[in-house]
């Protein structure tokens, strides 16, 4: 499944006829067969580095596998399933709430009255999320509500920035087409601003969901009462159990890829023209 991860567009190029040479040329003309070999090559390289790594800070695959077993068998709140569930739930709720909020703030930026607020939210992305701890502590109870609030707020700062840039990139010609067709303000807003940008907004959500994983671990470290992957990573790091840390990092990687793929699938099903646009 092709995911929404950004890939480099390849303009037409003259094929030299030598596949190996094409692999190292700028915009080299590689077919599907050569491309799959490139991917396999990188996987093999990664596994070789992992199996025979000279860095002691990186556990061997066998150690990570054993860590998985231990975590799986661990009871209750220290178990793998429980902690993945806690973090996944937080991630999904955080992505959903921040997406809705950010869409609202971004789309409202076409109304001059709301533009300063939008700019302010974008500026807040420079402020570390821990800078808001006191605010969150005052407003929310420690635990689930505070974690959701922190994640939602932190992700929204970045999502609003990305989503506003999507709206800003709508060509002026599109607005003018709608105007000459007699569309009123709300029709222009829906037909030019909202409807055509929804696929790009899903891409923005996918990109920022990845950033959400980085935030989650920090938020769960700060707020460890309920457990979760972040708090587990913190605990295992402080006791130098690196195999367990890497096991959780692998889980995050797998969940992120699945999430990315699901968002890409949703985009294609709901907005089939986006596939045509990508190919064009």
């Amino acid at each position, binding site marked *: 499944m092709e995911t929404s991860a950004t890939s480099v567009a390849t303009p037409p190029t003259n094929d030299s006829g030598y596949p190996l040479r094409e692999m190292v040329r700028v915009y080299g003309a590689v077919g599907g067969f050569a491309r799959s070999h490139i991917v396999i090559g990188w996987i093999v390289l990664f596994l070789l580095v992992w199996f025979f790594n000279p860095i002691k800070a990186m556990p061997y695959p066998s150690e990570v596998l054993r860590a998985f077993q231990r975590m799986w068998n661990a009871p209750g709140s220290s178990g793998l399933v429980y902690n993945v569930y806690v973090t996944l739930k937080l991630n999904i709720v955080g992505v959903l709430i921040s997406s809705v909020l950010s869409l609202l703030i971004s789309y409202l930026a076409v109304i001059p009255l709301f533009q300063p607020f939008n700019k302010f939210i974008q500026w807040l992305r420079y402020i570390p999320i821990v800078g808001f701890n006191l605010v969150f502590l005052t407003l929310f109870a420690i635990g689930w509500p505070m974690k959701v609030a922190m994640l939602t707020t932190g992700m929204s700062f970045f999502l609003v920035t990305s989503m506003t840039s999507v709206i800003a990139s709508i*060509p002026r*010609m*599109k607005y*003018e*087409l709608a*105007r*000459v*067709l*007699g*569309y009123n303000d709300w*029709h222009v807003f829906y*037909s030019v601003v909202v*409807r*055509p940008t929804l696929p790009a907004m899903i891409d923005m959500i996918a990109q920022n969901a990845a950033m959400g994983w980085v935030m989650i671990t920090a938020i769960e470290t700060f707020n460890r009462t309920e457990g979760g992957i972040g708090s587990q990573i913190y605990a295992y790091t402080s006791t130098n159990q690196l195999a367990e840390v890497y096991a959780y990092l692998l889980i995050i990687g797998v969940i992120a890829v699945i999430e990315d793929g699901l968002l890409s699938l949703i985009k294609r099903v709901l*907005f089939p*023209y986006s596939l*045509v*646009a990508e190919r*064009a």
Partner: protein
Amino acid sequence: MTDNHTDCIPGPLDQMPARLETLLHIEKVGKEFPMNDGSTFVALKDFSLEIQNIKDKPQIVSLLGPSGSGKTTALRIIAGLDKPTSGCVLITNGEGQHLRPVRVGDVGVVFQRYPLFEDLNVLHNLIDPAVRSGMNKDEAKEKALRLLDEFDLVKQGLAWPLQLSGGQRQRVAILQQLMLDRHFIILDEPFSGLDPVNILNVIKLISNIAHQHTLNTFLIITHDVTSALIISDHLYLLGRERDKQGEPIQGSKVMKVYDLIAEGLAYRSDVEDLPRFVEIRKEIRLVEFPKL
């Protein structure tokens, strides 16, 4: 180019057609833009133009000028997209109606790159604007299907705009305007980037659509002298005056008008074979254009 490509244009007139009411009146329009250094750039100055309803004929008028002569600025003002700094643009949308200041949406515009709603298929690119303008959805669909059939686009009805060729996009963009029952349409550089065969196809297309209603008025913004001469009944040359040193003075205006009906060059399929056509084309290309 041979005359068989222009056979869509009805034959020569037996007599000079009567000119009826004014459909578009542009009087001394000026347009200035503030520049970053505090100065002002004058794009248009005293730009005046009038299009009259020609009895039993559509009106096809070309605004011809080289790059940078203010054609696009003029288009935007006529379409109501920009307000002039001075002067006025008055329009009437039908027989017996009075002239009134133009508003955005009065005039259809087919923009140069044929923008469409990329997230709607071709059929809905036609239905959506019509429904939003108040047309019944079934009626809009019926009309859209009829137009697609008429303009050989039925197979593309369910295609996305990105899947269309340049020529197909242009036709859909024109049909989008026709869905709204507008008589006044501006076409921005419709011949730009086309090969000679396709230029003639576009000339046929515009002429065919224009001749569907006597009130149809097409204003073609172009720098293509030959195409403008073939298709138009009036041709306005837009350009800038020059000072004593030969330097262009800011502010484009209509420098010359060719009444091609009076010249006997309008509504003719054999127009390119006429000596006067060749003379005027030469005059514009070699004498008038370099001065603009």
